[in-house]
């Protein structure tokens, strides 16, 4: 179910494949930076399809191919494409659409001298969304460049320092079941630096980034037709407002077992956004208006626990996220503010988010959970339909019947409460506050290489019943046949994989 409100569109996120660092123990999926000093518990360099070559006097060069992808074939049991059913911003990913990334990286590494090395890499990630040729019959594809950057670094002793520049998705840990990065998730063109320091008891990492975007939207970019110098008309960039974004993240790991096989981590994240003032040409082509400058900030924290290595619960983890965003930052870096205040800015908008992600692994079964609560208020004076709070809780369990056969069940419930009456059903005398809710129950037969919730590739046969209350049904337009369905079915097969793809 599509969002009823005009929620800022999220970029299709790539999956987080490892709740750091637990997942790396489970699956060698991450091609990581060179080991950090004595950080033997750091991510393991995958033995990927790397082709080493000597470039120049000992500089080692590697080409690495990586990928994330999911492809599904699904029906709604009525002969049509099964589509995601959600009333919250980040619903359960059980029925989400196909998506894939192809990542190419070339790495250069100097030999170790006096215990230090220099390294660099160039990363290019192409992403493809859903409309695959074999389904649409159209020899074309929606694609995006999700990464195109270069990084240079130095590692020596206990310190690892790197600089990067380019176009990059830049983020931390996710809630896998919801395909959601609840604390930090930025997509900009810019650069940043990272400093990591190893200690006997853990590891410290500080990351700072600055970047810009200039969305193709009249809010930030306006191209107007003007009479040509001689004939006809020319296009002139009339409004060009870059959104300037700065972010910083500090993380401290506290190792409770040797080499960080078990540990705690605390992360603090902050973000600031700024948009300068601009002049916008009105639709009449003649008059203009001033678009005021705007800014916003965000702060959040993450508390995590993991256990890795071997043992009864090896590979388990839990992360708790809390985030508060104000003004422009409440809409996200790709968001166009709506519900603005009298000054036509986003000042006064806010978002409070609490999220939980966890995985409990045992030799016999695994349990994944994901949940969040989000309270969003626009900058408008009144609380309206555009303001809302929403929440979702999802849990997936797989039994490891054999090493490769893992039947499972997922259940989720999501609900949204709007701050004002639903426009379609409001009445002057008795405004009707709709509370759409969806409960999904899924049966999954998964096949994978290992008995793990994060083992990939994984092939799933899925049946999902999405049960909608009346409000959820009303969030479809009256002309949409799905409005009549209180249960929507999903039957399909999905494959999901990742390897060598973790360039965040």
């Amino acid at each position, binding site marked *: 179910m599509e969002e009823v409100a005009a929620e800022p569109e999220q970029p299709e996120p790539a999956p987080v494949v490892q709740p750091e660092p637990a997942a790396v123990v489970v699956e060698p999926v991450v091609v990581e930076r060179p080991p950090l000093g004595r950080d033997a518990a750091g991510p393991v360099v995958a033995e990927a399809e790397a082709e080493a070559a000597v470039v120049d006097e000992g500089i080692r060069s590697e080409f690495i191919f990586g990928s994330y992808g999911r492809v599904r074939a699904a029906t709604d049991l009525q002969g049509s494409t099964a589509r995601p059913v959600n009333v919250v911003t980040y619903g359960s990913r059980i029925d989400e659409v196909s998506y894939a990334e192809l990542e190419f990286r070339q790495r250069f590494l100097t030999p170790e001298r006096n215990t230090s090395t220099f390294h660099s890499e160039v990363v290019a990630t192409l992403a493809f969304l859903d409309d695959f040729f074999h389904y649409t019959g159209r020899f074309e594809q929606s694609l995006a460049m999700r990464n195109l950057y270069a990084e240079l670094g130095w590692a020596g002793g206990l310190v690892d320092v790197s600089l990067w520049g380019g176009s990059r998705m830049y983020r931390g840990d996710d809630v896998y079941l919801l395909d959601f990065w609840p604390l930090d998730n930025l997509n900009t063109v810019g650069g940043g630096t990272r400093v990591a320091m190893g200690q006997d008891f853990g590891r410290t990492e500080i990351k700072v980034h600055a970047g810009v975007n200039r969305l193709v939207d009249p809010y930030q970019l306006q191209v107007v037709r003007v009479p040509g110098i001689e*004939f006809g008309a020319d296009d002139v960039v009339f409004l060009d407002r870059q959104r300037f974004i700065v972010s910083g993240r500090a993380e401290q790991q506290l190792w409770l077992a040797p080499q960080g096989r078990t540990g705690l981590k605390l992360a603090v994240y902050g973000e600031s956004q700024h948009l300068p003032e601009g002049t916008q040409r009105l639709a*009449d*082509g003649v008059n203009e208006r001033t678009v005021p400058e705007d800014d916003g900030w965000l702060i959040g924290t993450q508390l995590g626990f993991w256990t890795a290595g071997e043992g009864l619960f090896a590979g388990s983890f839990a992360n708790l996220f809390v985030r508060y965003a104000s003004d422009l930052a409440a809409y996200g870096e790709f968001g166009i503010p709506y519900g603005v205040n009298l000054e036509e800015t986003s000042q006064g908008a806010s978002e409070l988010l609490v999220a939980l992600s966890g995985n409990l692994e045992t030799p016999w079964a695994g349990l994944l959970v994901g949940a969040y609560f989000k309270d969003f208020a626009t900058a408008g004076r009144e609380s309206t339909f555009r303001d809302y709070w929403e929440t979702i809780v999802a849990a997936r369990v797989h039994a490891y019947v054999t090493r490769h056969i893992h039947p499972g069940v997922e259940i989720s419930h999501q609900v949204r409460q709007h701050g004002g009456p639903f426009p379609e059903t409001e009445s002057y005398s008795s405004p009707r506050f709709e509370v759409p809710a969806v409960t999904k129950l899924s049966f999954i037969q998964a096949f994978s290489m290992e008995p793990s919730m994060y083992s990939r590739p994984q092939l799933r046969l899925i049946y999902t019943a999405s049960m909608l209350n009346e409000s959820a049904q009303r969030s479809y337009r009256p002309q949409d046949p799905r409005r009549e369905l209180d249960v929507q079915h999903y039957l399909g097969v999905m494959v999901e994989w990742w390897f060598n793809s973790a360039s965040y």
Partner: protein
Amino acid sequence: MRHMRLGLLLLALLLFASWSVASCFDVPVNAPPKMTTEVEDWRDEIIYQILVDRFENGDKNNDYNLDLRAPTGWHGGDWQGIIDRLDYIEELGVTALWISPNYKNVEQDAGISGYHGYWPQDFVSTNPHFGDMNKLRELVAESHKRGIKVIFDVVVNHIGQLFYYDINLNGRPDEHVEGSGLVYDQYGGARSDLVRVTEWDPDFDPRGIHSRTSLGEAGIAPIRWVYMPEDNRVPPMPKVFQNDDWYNRKGRVVTPWGWNHREQVVLADFPGGLKDIKTSLPEVQQEMIRVWTHWILETNADGFRIDTVKHVEDEFWKVFAAGVRKELKAAGKNNFLMFGEIFDGDDALLGHYTKDGMLDSVFYFSHKYQVFDDVFKRGGATKKIEDLYNARQANYGTTPHPNGIVDANGQGIAPTRALVTFLDNHDVARFLYEFNQVEGLRAALFYLLTADGIPCIYYGTEQDFEGGNDPANREDMWPSQFDTSGTTFKHVQQLNQLRKKYAPLRRGNFQLRWTSERTATEQDAGIVAFERSYNGESVLVVVNAHASKTSETSATSLGGGGMPVSFAPGTVLVNVFQDDDANKEFVVAADGTVTVSVKPRSGKILVKK
């Protein structure tokens, strides 16, 4: 190290050379020319009217949006084309060019292109279809080298259709029909009148166009500027013209009766949605002086032909004409001609605009209608010529304007002596369309080029073009291949040469010696004769406008007398116009009269032998 030094030396030399070359080319090639006074006496001039888009395509680089199949489309003519054809123009013998408006025009509106130039959008930028400012300067300079003057076309009355009236206040231009047109017998014949309402071009409302909704009127309708850059329909330039208060905003003249309604004539929008500028405002008047003198100061052109004069207040013309003369005189440009278009047959109305410091001259429409149409086309009595001439002193300004046009001695020339005469132009059907006999055209040209006034020939006349009303009368010139061997071309050429040779034909006074009430088979039917004298030299011109009969300057067979002339008895007068008439010499009789016989549709120019 040596290589490095050498490299640095070469780099320094390269930089110096670049700077030097750049400096050499940094000459003011775009600088406006020095103002010069090219005209000794405007009565010496023969104007040749050129519709630039239709004359000659000299530069393929400015061919944009051409549609040669469409008479209302752009056809590609440009200023370079005129430059390329200056030999032709010079060979024809004309001495001044009146060209289409120079400014940037609306590209097209309602499927009709702005090739003619009368839909202003930017008053100070050149029309890119024609060329740039440098090319315009080149046209003026090249013309001047050949003794040819250049006259620019001026529009102050209106801009193109660049705004609409938001009558229903919905912020977009609408056009709809109200009423059903039905009559309801059961309600005593009550009518539901059918009314077309267009926000582009609403009918004149003396109060100003009012907005109205289903509840009634809602005050003066706001105007909304349109923005269609592809058609160059964007708010006018310079930007001061984007002031809503600079327009009268009373809607379009309600044709045809509105043309007789003075308030509408002056304050209403022109048909086609051309929005009427509020020329009564002093700031508008000053801006018009600024933008129009700008064109002269940039190019050193020699005169203005001014469009739609009667649609603008008298006060404007007094201020504008005086202002332009003053500005140009201060810049060194003297003897600058301003003649106006009053598209009207009312001789008194035409003359009105030559008085009180207004214009130096007007396009002599009453003369076109009463002389060329009535007499030369329709065979009317030549007495009409005399009647019209006799009204001139009363109807037109008889005293020169301060800083106005002057003669070779610096004496001011009164408007009565400088009227611009013509057979046809771009707004009326060509002479041959209404009267398709080339002999008649040549007779009319004979009169045009010998009689009093500053003659103006519409391009293509010399090629016997015969197009009907606009746009059929705006033919492409190039199919004629600029032929210089045609009879009419030669006819015009010879008359122009004679006009140049004999000063009385240009500057001489004008004394009608013979006109006639008779139009049938009478002795003098169709005859008009006049004498022109200048500095002691006289020329006698006799024209027979009759279509089929040789006539003579005498009424003896009707009981009248002969034609008295100023030449002494016994003077032998010889026809200097070469034609096939063997009868070339005439002797002034003892009684001071001379009888000249002229074949139908022809004329003679007689000078003392």
